[in-house]
């Protein structure tokens, strides 16, 4: 890791509410799904920020906001100081060049009717000034080589490749415009363990080679730890804890992080009989109707009256060096944190 202190992405108070409507003919708004509900963080050049949290907590929505694929309800996303959420037209197009995305599903995220060459080279059609037309084929072949695919396979179709190879095609495409930031939304979740390792190694090699910054979204906590410099834990649209990987995994202070880590099964049967585990009861509440105060209070074993009244801010608390959004944040030994 050679992350520098220079922030290339600054996210402030980002909010995305999806309207909940009722009625077929006349739609009335009856509420809102608070998918992202006040998220702030910085991303530094060459760094990987991991994002973890349960299904539906807003990870993919956050990714889309950063890519300006969704417009936020409020808040800002600054890339090198310029706000992408208010950019339009040519400026937006230029800014988007700098942030690319690799998606979860290598089976459905590639157009089956396009050749690999067309898929990887498509960004050059949109940003035609990056590589002159005559040089594009060669550039695509170089990209295929960079991600470990055979450049001679440029005319093949996605179905002729395995899942891991398709994920490499998606990565090659993400690299085409030489972005500084790549957002990886569950890039290895659909892959077999043996192929996962290949793709993870590729991502790390490319990061070093091109000084890329990654936002790495995944639900496998050991995969996130392996690749991340810092990790943000999300719950119901908010970041509840943020810190360096060792801070989050070895000394988490938020009850939700502690529960999440203790639920991860350890790939070693030794001592399994005595392992401590926090089993959370129930499911996460609906983001359309989150609990008052601390969103986690309905499942938290430490909740007090204040938790229902006051939303805890994400800030550094006594006894710990990294921010946590809990009134009663404290380090607790999570025995089996991986």
């Amino acid at each position, binding site marked *: 890791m050679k992350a520098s202190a220079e922030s290339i992405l600054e996210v402030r108070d980002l909010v995305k509410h999806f309207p909940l409507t009722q009625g077929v003919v006349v739609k009335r708004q009856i509420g809102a799904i608070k998918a992202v509900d006040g998220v702030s963080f910085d991303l530094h050049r060459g760094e990987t920020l991991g994002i973890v949290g349960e299904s539906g907590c807003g990870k993919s929505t956050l990714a889309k906001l950063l890519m300006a694929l969704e417009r936020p309800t409020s808040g800002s996303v600054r890339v090198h100081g310029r706000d992408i959420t208010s950019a339009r037209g040519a400026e937006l197009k230029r800014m988007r060049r700098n942030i690319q995305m690799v998606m979860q599903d290598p089976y459905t995220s590639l157009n089956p009717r396009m050749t690999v060459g067309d898929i990887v080279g498509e960004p050059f059609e949109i940003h035609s000034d990056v590589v002159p037309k005559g040089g594009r084929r060669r550039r695509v072949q170089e990209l295929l080589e960079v991600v470990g695919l055979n450049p001679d396979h440029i005319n093949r179709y996605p179905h002729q490749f395995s*899942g891991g190879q398709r994920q490499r095609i998606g990565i090659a495409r993400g690299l085409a415009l030489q972005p500084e930031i790549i957002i990886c939304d569950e890039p290895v979740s659909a892959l*077999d363990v043996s192929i996962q*390792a290949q793709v993870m190694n590729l991502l790390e090699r490319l990061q070093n080679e091109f000084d890329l910054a990654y936002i790495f979204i995944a639900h496998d906590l*050991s995969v996130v*730890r392996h690749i991340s410099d810092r990790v943000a834990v999300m719950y119901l649209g908010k970041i509840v804890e943020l810190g360096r*990987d060792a801070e989050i995994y070895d000394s988490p202070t938020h009850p939700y992080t502690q529960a999440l880590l203790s639920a991860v*099964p350890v790939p070693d*049967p030794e001592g399994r009989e005595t392992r401590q585990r926090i089993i959370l009861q129930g*499911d996460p509440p609906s983001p359309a109707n989150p609990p008052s105060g601390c969103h986690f209070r309905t499942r938290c074993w430490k909740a007090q009256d204040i938790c229902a009244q006051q939303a805890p801010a994400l800030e550094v608390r006594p006894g710990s060096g990294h921010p946590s959004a809990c009134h009663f944040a404290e380090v607790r030994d999570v025995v089996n944190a*991986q």
Partner: protein
Amino acid sequence: MTEVLSEQMGSGSHSGALLEVDDLHVEFRTRAGVAKAVNGVTYSVDAGETLAVLGESGSGKSVTAQTIMGILDIPPGKVTGGEIRFRGVDLLKLPEDQRRRIRGEGISMVFQDALSSLNPVFPVGWQIAEMFRMHRGTSRADAKKKAVELMDRVRIPAAKERVNDFPHQFSGGMRQRIMIAMAIALDPEILIADEPTTALDVTVQAQIMGLLAELQRDSNMGLILITHDLGVVADVADKIAVMYGGRIVENAPVHELYKNPAHPYSKGLLESIPRVDHKGQELYAIKGLPPNLLEMPTGCAFHPRCPYRRDNCVTDVPPLYTISGTRGSACHYWREVIDEGER
């Protein structure tokens, strides 16, 4: 299991394990050719025991399970050899009406795509109750009462009020618990759970695995857990069968396999898990790709990817060598692999 069934099955009179899969072969005949999905699978599970079946996507884990359940797609599927003995009786030789009895009462299954296998147009309680009406002829009212009991047992909150709700009104984790409720409705002796938690969050996964362990403890069920999650396996398995290219390449008690694998594929899998002390280093990765079932590699199916390969691996199919009474490895050079010592 009912009295009638136990009599038919000759309970107690056989010496092997409760369920034994013995040298099973299954093929799919498709336009593209013959896909040998299962090429001699042997494993067994006893009452109260948990067998984890581990392996790469497409290695034949689900097809083996479907064959045990008697729900294989025939055609294109075809069982071309082997036996599946339940209480010593070969299920493959039983007439369909007897197999149907065993399904649900003797052996039952939670399916891989459970989230989509509930019928969206019927209330969940009705779907659970249907199990009792079909197999036991239970009256409507009684069946519904039993459905509520089961929903309680798998911890659906307010089961009584929710028994008439439809699947889409439940979260993924709750739907999975409902599928488990249906699978255990008739007190099966063996439960096959095919990737029961793959689509779920770790916190919900922990709830479901805890539930399965409890149900197993209560009724001394044998459990076949199909998964590719090495963490879940380490947590709950008594023994493991590792599959590759339609075969068992290694079987072993859980502690022995994690400590000292005896097949290069299982060893590679364990080594490719990201570990804290390896942060910043390359992950170990098994090179290459899983085999194409239409053109299986000659000799050992793992040879194109194997770091231990010698010349004879390309020509000679390794048998499942016996390492001890409870361990086997389908590798000519298992001694060398295992001798590399404890991890």
